[in-house]
């Protein structure tokens, strides 16, 4: 397995850094399929009944656990394996991710075929979830080191791929299920096996393409700025030290609150546009598709913008503009103004995606590059927490108000105001971010084993 070793992935002379973003995109585009898992939900409730759900069929509420487990495992595995990734390099981590994500599909398919739910949870939720976590953080540190001049843009490009993953995964699954379906079988298991194989192959392209930066490399003609914001450090903080800093936990809060609020809008936007504004279900499905486009575009736009205006001001925009727009949703819904509602929610979605994509560069600014992948991994537990807490909170608020006979439209309004409150809290967390105390800085050896700099000059 030596081709996976870090030593074997140091860029050869002439290697272009523009090969790293497609390698990262290959990984993120595949694991981003997780956001499209719901495409299996309806067919999986009819595996026995085929045309309609039989009493022994799985319930939709039960199936929701598969995605939740996967997101929890994403955060946990990213946190646990982050330092391992920094040690072994991106290729090994990407390979492990491809094996887990592709293999997870196959195990889940076995669960579908034998109708054993625990196998679906084990396959897609646990094994696939570990693949998600490893894959998500594997290219981040490498991209930041290849693009010291544009770290936001570079990581934004990869994380945009995660947003785009659902756009690829959803129609792919639908078409494959159509292809494999027979009068007695919905083709779900076969589709999962095929998707596991397809994703494994695409992820292996990333495995073979990625390279780490040779020691001493920097972009041609680029010199590190000598004067910059106090929030951009020249020091290095290890992952073990980073979690002891208040800055790490403030950013944890920033991500948690931004994601929780975003999940709230994602869960309620489609019901609002249908139930309050009277839009037809087919048009509402189109609206959901539009949201995923803006979610994806926002990842690249905002993270690239953060390279120019700074990370803290970028998050300030997310929280200030976000809170205003969330509070505007009830007005747009009340006025039955579909164009205003659509514009407001689409802009919100760009900032939801942007929040994910800008965080690696923010971490790099505060803690340096030496273990930024591992620190990012630990921060992703905020996403897991939001993935569990966000929907629970939204459902609780809906049930609480329904029990008290609050009209639906008014119940949605209250939810939006509470979510705007989340963003106000996020604004406070972001405002409190200050430079990391020098006592956490550590003289760390470069984790890249020494190579001959004379022969390791990449383009």
């Amino acid at each position: 397995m030596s081709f996976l070793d870090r030593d074997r992935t140091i860029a050869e002379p002439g290697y272009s850094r523009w090969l790293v973003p497609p390698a990262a995109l290959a990984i993120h585009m595949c694991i981003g399929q997780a956001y499209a898992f719901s495409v299996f939900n309806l067919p999986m409730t009819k595996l026995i009944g085929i045309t309609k759900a039989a009493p022994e069929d799985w319930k939709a509420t039960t199936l929701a656990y598969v995605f939740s487990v996967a997101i929890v495992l994403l955060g946990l595995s990213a946190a646990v394996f982050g330092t391992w990734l920094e040690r072994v390099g991106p290729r090994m981590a990407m390979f492990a991710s491809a094996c887990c994500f592709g293999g997870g599909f196959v195990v889940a398919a076995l669960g579908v075929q034998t109708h054993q739910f625990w196998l679906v949870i084990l396959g897609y939720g646990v094994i696939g979830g570990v693949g998600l976590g490893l894959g998500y953080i594997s290219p981040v540190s490498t991209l930041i080191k290849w693009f010291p001049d544009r770290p936001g843009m570079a990581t934004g490009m990869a994380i945009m791929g995660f947003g785009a993953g659902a756009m690829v995964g959803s129609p792919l699954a639908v078409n494959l299920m159509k292809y494999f379906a027979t009068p007695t079988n919905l083709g779900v298991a076969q589709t999962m096996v095929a998707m596991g194989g397809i994703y494994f192959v695409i992820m292996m392209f990333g495995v073979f393409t990625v390279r780490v930066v040779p020691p001493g490399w920097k972009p041609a003609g680029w010199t590190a700025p000598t004067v910059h914001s106090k929030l951009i450090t020249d020091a290095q903080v290890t992952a073990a030290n980073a979690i002891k800093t208040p800055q790490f936990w403030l950013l944890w809060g920033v991500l948690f609150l931004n994601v929780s609020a975003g999940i709230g809008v994602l869960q309620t936007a489609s019901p609002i546009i249908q139930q309050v504004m009277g839009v037809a279900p087919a048009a509402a499905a189109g609206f959901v598709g539009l949201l995923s486009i803006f979610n994806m575009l926002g990842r690249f736009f905002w993270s690239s913008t953060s390279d120019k205006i700074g990370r803290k001001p970028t998050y300030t925009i997310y929280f200030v503009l976000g809170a205003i727009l969330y509070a505007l949703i009830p007005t747009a819904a009340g006025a039955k103004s579909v164009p205003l509602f659509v514009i407001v929610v689409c802009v919100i979605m760009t900032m939801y995606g942007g929040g994910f994509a800008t965080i690696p560069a923010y971490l790099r600014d505060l803690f340096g590059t030496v273990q930024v992948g591992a620190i990012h991994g630990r921060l992703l537990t905020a996403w897991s927490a939001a993935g569990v807490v966000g929907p629970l909170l939204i459902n609780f608020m809906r049930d609480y108000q329904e029990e008290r006979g609050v009209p639906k439209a008014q119940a949605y309004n209250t939810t939006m105001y509470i979510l705007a409150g989340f963003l106000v809290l996020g604004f406070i967390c972001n405002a409190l971010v200050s430079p990391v105390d020098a006592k956490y800085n550590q003289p760390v050896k470069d984790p890249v084993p020494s190579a001959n700099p004379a022969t390791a000059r990449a383009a």
Partner: protein
Amino acid sequence: MKARIAISWIIVGVPLIWGFSQTVIKSLALFQ
């Protein structure tokens, strides 16, 4: 190297553009 970069972007770009176009087509229902 330029050819290698181009091929790499095509490998990831083709599925991305396909998925993007499918989503755009689906989104058009909102405007009809």
